């Protein structure tokens, strides 16, 4: 099964050379620490693909990922916060920052802005990975 996933699958294309994102960073982290253990990388990729969105995003198990009618929940529903709301919060935080004059308050809200921006980035990356995972599943379809 590992070979099936690996054959015909371009890891570089999958990760994306320009922005490796969460997925790629995880693989890179593993390779940095285990440079000779390529099989484990394939295992890791397989594990990540099989656990990809929406389960991975919400940290829930597969059973929990099913909605009321057995349909997978969207990432937004599962995570407790939607992408639009995140974008709105980021905008509000940035607007609020502009009103601050106190150095400590500015430092504080800058950290929150960073957290919100990273979370938003994760949403977008997960959506991208979801498409890539779907493509991968198509090319390696199995019963």
């Amino acid at each position, binding site marked *: 099964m590992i070979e099936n996933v690996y054959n015909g699958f371009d890891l570089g294309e999958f990760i994306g050379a320009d922005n490796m994102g969460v997925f790629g960073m995880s693989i890179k982290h593993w390779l940095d620490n285990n440079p000779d253990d390529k099989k484990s990388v394939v295992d890791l990729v397989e594990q990540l693909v099989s656990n990809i969105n929406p389960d991975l995003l919400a940290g829930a198990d597969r059973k929990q990922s099913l909605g009321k009618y057995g349909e997978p929940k969207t990432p937004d529903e599962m*995570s407790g916060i939607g992408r639009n709301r995140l974008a709105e919060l980021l905008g509000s935080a940035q607007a609020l920052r502009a009103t601050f004059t106190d150095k400590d308050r500015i430092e504080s809200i800058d950290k929150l802005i960073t957290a919100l921006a990273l979370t938003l980035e994760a949403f977008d990356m997960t959506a991208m990975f979801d498409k890539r995972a779907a493509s991968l599943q198509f090319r390696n379809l199995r019963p």
Partner: protein
Amino acid sequence: MSKDNRSLESFLNISYPESCGIGRIGTMFYQLGNKRKAQEIFEGMVEANPESADARTALGAVLVSMNRHQNALPHLLKAVELQPEKIASYVNLAEVYIRQGDLPKAVKSLSEAVKLDQTGTSSAANRARVLILEINKIIRLTS
């Protein structure tokens, strides 16, 4: 603008489920090995609500995993103060004491975790039980 002492979370109307949603993304980064991004998200959450034991515990855990024990300590102590019934905070705190070689403090914190787990079902408390046994072995060997 007059000084407003409300937390950023309250000022921006970030609800508890929304906060948990952001926390899950931080946890996802952590699980995928991107500790730096996890740290930034949890730091933002602490800034948004310094009274959140969850955010403090999560940030403390990430910092411990990055071997930044001194930075983790105040967050874990605060988490215990904010939510004295939270088992994970005591175990995380003990991990710092162990790494600092302060075994009596570690045992005290681990014992608190065990005391809170009446049913013996908490994985964090079970780790505490194992750690207490190991520490006692070390103390016996060195005394």
